[in-house]
Every structure is written in structure tokens, then in C-alpha cells.
């Protein structure tokens, strides 16, 4: 009997708390946004991305934001449906997978929910979203290769360590280097292999090149982790690297520790992959709220490349993720 009473009490409590939740979301002048992102633990990039969004979409800035995280597309779609039912004004989406979003975005359109994509694009008709804010990986690669070209070496013997084959970052960052190697006689690839974003594999690849006795003067690693693995192999073989040394070391993503290596002049270059999309999204929402129309669907973020000889402590603090 006691148990029954307890159960009834708990059930009532739950009903009341649910009502309370439902009631709280009343219109109080805040813009309701539902944000669907990948798991912030996925990488340093994602952690910085999530922190940036959380800092922007606060009540102080006039937003009522709800967050949903998943690395799985179907779970993301389910949360999107939930957000649409809850009647959000804007749906911000970083999709885990490019496919499968058509129907849920059509529902959003029917309900008058505006969709803004960030970081990742999807395979859907572009009438289904108002804007997409992305990084241009090919441009990141081009910026890095242009910088390398500006070093005016007599000969470029490059160890090219690639990310997971087929990923957008790998394709973009590889494409620029491949084009340059094909166009110039004094650019050679000593080796071009994937280390799958893995520092240990990068270390073994560079170790293998060192053991073979081939000469090289550039390490072009498609992310910071792999550059670190490569540098570990160089250190072991006592090959000097960094500004004014034997080997130029290049990485991507601008992790804080990597920028610190630049500051110490152990590395030469680090390309940014900008995780700070919140201000761009905020701009768009402000414009839409003011009744303006967005003319450019695809917004490409500014991305920097840092040179070890010019980087400052402020850069490290501001751009390090």
C-alpha cells in the first residue's frame, strides 16, 4: 500500500514538473534556437566550437537556446524533429552525415523554422536552409601551400602526411599540395601516405623515411597531431626543425599547444580551421529578425595561417583551441 501511494505521488510530481517545463518556454521576447551539434568530446575543434556557441547563445544576448549532441545522424534527426515540435524559431545544425535530412528540413519549412547550417554541409536542396557557414578546406590548403612557396627554397622535398582518406579536410588540404607538386619541377613528394589523423602512425611513417636515408626538408602534416608525431621522429634522429633549421614543419587546426610550438619556433606554420561560427550565425539571425534577406547562401569563414616568425602570444590566446 505504501508503495502504491509513493508511486502515485511520484507520478503526480512528474506530471507537475513536466507542466512546469512546458510552461517555462513561454514567449518572453527571447529568440528560441535549437542547436544540433556533434559530440564536443570528439576533438579539440569541436570542444572549442561548442564553447563558442554556448558563449554566444545566452539569455543575455537575447536567445533561449537548447542543445542536442550526437555523432549519429539518426539521433540528430530525431532531436531536430523534437526541436521543430517544441516550436523553435531557428534550427542550427552541424550534421553528422550529409544524407537523410530532406524530410525533416521540409517539416521545418512547413512549421516556419529557419535552418542554418554550420561547419558541415548536407546533401539537400538549398531552398531548405537559409545559410550555411563553412570552412573552405581547399582554401586552407592553398593558403598553406602559398606560404610554403613564399619560403623560396631551392628544392622542396616534402613528406606529406594525410588525414583519413576521403574526409573533406584531407581532400582540400591534399589537393592544393598535389597541384603545386605537379606544376613545379623542384617540388617533390618524398612520400605521401595517410596516417589517419594518428600521431603514432605519422611517427612511424617519418621514421621509415629517415631510416631509408632519403633527404627531405618539409613536413606537411594535415593536422597538428600528425605533425607532432612527425616531430617526435625527427627529434629521435636529431634532425633539426623549425625556423631557420633543416626541416620545415607544417600543421593544421591551431591547437593551443601547436601554436605554442610555433611561438617557440619549433614548428614553422599552422593553418587555422575556424571553429568560431557563432558570431556569423548571430549576424544572420539579427539580419533575418530585422526583416532583411540573406543573399549569400554559403558563407565561407575567414581562416588564417600562422607563421612562426610573426606569431604573438595574443594570437596563441585568441586563436588556440
Amino acid at each position, binding site marked *: 500500500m505504501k508503495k502504491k501511494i509513493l508511486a502515485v505521488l511520484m507520478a503526480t510530481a512528474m506530471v507537475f514538473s513536466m507542466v512546469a517545463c512546458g510552461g517555462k518556454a513561454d514567449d518572453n521576447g527571447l529568440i528560441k534556437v535549437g542547436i544540433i551539434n556533434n559530440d564536443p*568530446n570528439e576533438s579539440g575543434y569541436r570542444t572549442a566550437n561548442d564553447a563558442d556557441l554556448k558563449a554566444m547563445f545566452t539569455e543575455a544576448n537575447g536567445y533561449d537556446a537548447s542543445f542536442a549532441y550526437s555523432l549519429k545522424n539518426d539521433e540528430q534527426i530525431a532531436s531536430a524533429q523534437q526541436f521543430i515540435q517544441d516550436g523553435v524559431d531557428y534550427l542550427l545544425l552541424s550534421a553528422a552525415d550529409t544524407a537523410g535530412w530532406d524530410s525533416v528540413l521540409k517539416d521545418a519549412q512547413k512549421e516556419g523554422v529557419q535552418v542554418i547550417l554550420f561547419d558541415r554541409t548536407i546533401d539537400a536542396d538549398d531552398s531548405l536552409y537559409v545559410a550555411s557557414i563553412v570552412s573552405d578546406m581547399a582554401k586552407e590548403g592553398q593558403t598553406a601551400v602559398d606560404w610554403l612557396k613564399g619560403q623560396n627554397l631551392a628544392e622542396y622535398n616534402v613528406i606529406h602526411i594525410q588525414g583519413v582518406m576521403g574526409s573533406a579536410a584531407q581532400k582540400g588540404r591534399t589537393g592544393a599540395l598535389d597541384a603545386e607538386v605537379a606544376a613545379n619541377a623542384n617540388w617533390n613528394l618524398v612520400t605521401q601516405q*595517410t596516417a*589517419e589523423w594518428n*600521431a603514432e602512425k605519422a611517427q612511424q*611513417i617519418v621514421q*621509415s623515411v629517415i631510416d*631509408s636515408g632519403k633527404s627531405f626538408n618539409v613536413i606537411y602534416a594535415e593536422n597538428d597531431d600528425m605533425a607532432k608525431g612527425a616531430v*617526435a621522429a625527427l627529434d629521435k*634522429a636529431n634532425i633539426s626543425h623549425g625556423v631557420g633549421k633543416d626541416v620545415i614543419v607544417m600543421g593544421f587546426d591551431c591547437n593551443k*599547444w601547436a601554436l605554442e610550438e610555433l611561438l617557440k619556433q619549433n614548428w614553422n606554420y599552422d593553418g587555422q580551421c575556424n571553429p568560431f561560427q557563432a558570431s556569423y550565425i548571430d549576424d544572420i539571425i539579427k539580419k533575418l529578425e530585422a526583416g532583411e534577406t540573406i543573399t549569400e547562401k554559403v558563407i565561407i569563414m575567414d581562416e588564417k595561417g600562422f607563421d612562426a616568425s610573426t606569431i604573438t602570444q595574443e594570437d596563441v590566446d585568441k586563436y588556440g583551441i
Partner: protein
Amino acid sequence: MNAKVSKKFSISELVMKLVRHQLFIPIAALLLLAIFNLINDPSFYKVTLGYSSTGDPVLSGYPITILDFGSELAILAIGMTLVTAATGGQDISVGATIAISGSVVLRMLCGPDGRAETMQMPIVVAFLISCVVAMLCGAFNGVLVAYFKIQPMVATLILYTAGRSIAAWINNNRLPIVKEESFKVFGGFIPGIPIPTPFFIALACIILMTLVLRFTNLKLYTQAVGINESSARLNGLNPAMIKFITFVILGICVAVAGLIKVSRLSTINYSVVAKDIEMDAILAVALGGNALSGGKFSMGASILGAYVIQFLTTTLYKLEVPSDALSAYKAIVVILLVVMSAPTVRKWFSDLGKKLKAKASVKEVG
């Protein structure tokens, strides 16, 4: 005429004896790889003596790389052999547990915010703490396998999936970096000694294990449990306890390998550190000619197997095989090994041998 035949006979017997010896498979694989590399490019064996930035002598070259990276595998193979022998199954959570123990070492050395300039405690203390954690992980697997009678692969699947998240959680998902050079010794070189440290660590583990096997009943007991659990129990052994112990010993091996791993880079990446290393460790045990279904084992053969695997990996890297294709090549080795050790194939071989023998004796009579 007769004398000739009998001589031939003894040679074939000798060959059969050799082939049956447990060390035959790893040595044959080693020779095969060695000869292949000799023909392909003799400079593979070139070892050069250089000097590190501190002026200490260091050796470098492919053979040294094999010794270096093969050693952490050899350490894991020691533990994996015991687990395999006692339980007839394998621990697939090794890579994830390395992530956990490595994460613990860094958490201890770099402090809670992961940014400490100096090490927060002696490396030995941090290592001992990581040992305890790795042994607890081993004990968790051991309890599931020994007392709850769950299949080893299924039981260790739990840590295999959860381990890397736990490792990230230990450091609040930060990436701590040890800034002191002295931490690099375990994955690098001891000043003044030109051979990589991991080799000496592996050597110490091997000597320790040899002593344990020589002066305790561990080998006898694990084999007894692996061959027939119920008769082992009837003879007064406690099979559950022995299985449990093998998992805890594997835990120690994992902690040692984890220290080497994090020392190499002075940092850790939770999602990829020691990725797929469990497969290499299991492969080392199989390549050592040990039955993956448990029972009798040879520790030496497993250790040799580990170095042979690294020989293969290094050869593939030298041939610039894409690293995402490495596992495909290793898969071929696994298939060959498994097929060779399958009972039907073994029977076919022994039948063939008998037939040849019969033919020879018929000839002799004729």
C-alpha cells in the same frame, strides 16, 4: 642403396621434427621476411651511429626501429599469452586499457589542469598508480571471465568500447603535455646508450617473466586450466583464481606498454593511442604457434612472434604501403595461420606425410 634410403629417411624425419617444433612458424616467418628484404633492398639492414642533440650516441635504421616498436608489442604478448593459455580466449581491450593507463600517468604528472610546467610527482609514483589502475581494469575483465563465466572476447568488449571514453574522462578531455625532457627516456634513449629504451624495458619484463615461470607453478597451472578445467579442479587447483591472475598480469603489461606509448609523444590522443594494438598482440601469440584455444604455450615463441609482426609492419612502411591498408596485409597472415592450424588441414598434412612414408617404404621393399 639401402643406406642411401635410410639416410634420406632420417633427413625427412629431422625436417618433420623441425616443422613440428613450436618455434618453427615464427622463425620461418622471420627468415621469409629477412630474405625478402635482403633481395628487395639490402640497405634495409643498414644501421648508422649518430649523435643526439645532447651529444649522446644513438643508433638508427630499420632494424633498430623494429627493436624499438616491437618491444611494446612483446611486452603485451607476454600477458596475452598467459590469458590465451588459461582462458582459451583473448583480451581485446588492451588498446583501450593502454589509453586509460597512459591517461592516468599524464594526469598524475601534469596535475588537474594538464598544464603544469614541472612534473607533479616522480615518474615512478605516477607509473605505479597507472599500474594499479591497469591491474584493476584487468581484474574487472578477470572477474567477468573467471567468476561470471563470460566469454573473454565478450567480457573485454566492454572496456574495448568504453575504455577510450574513460581515458578522456580521467583528464577532463584535455590533452596534457609533459614538458620535461626526462620523461622522453622511456620511449627514446637512455643518455649514453645507443639502443632504444623500450628494448631494455621489454628485456626486463622477459627476464622477470622467465624467472616467474621458472620458480613458480604459474606455467603448469595455467596450462592445466587451459587444457582441462574440470580435471584441473579435481587436482586441487582453483581455475577461476588462475584465470583472474592472468588478466591481472596482462594489466601490468598494459601499464608498462602504456608508459612507453605516452613517453614517445609526451602526450596522448585518446581516440587513436595504441589503436588496434590488441590485434597485433593476439597475432603475436598466434604466430608463436600457440593454440588460441588455450592450453600449452611457449612464451619465447610469442615474444619472437611480436618482433616478427613489427618486422612485417616496418617492411610495409618501407614499401610505402598506405597505413590504412596495413591491417589488410596482416589479415592475410592471420588467415594463413588460422588455416594452417585448423584441425582439418593438420589432418590432411599428417595424412599426406603418412602416404609419402608408406610409398617410400613400399619402394624400399620393392
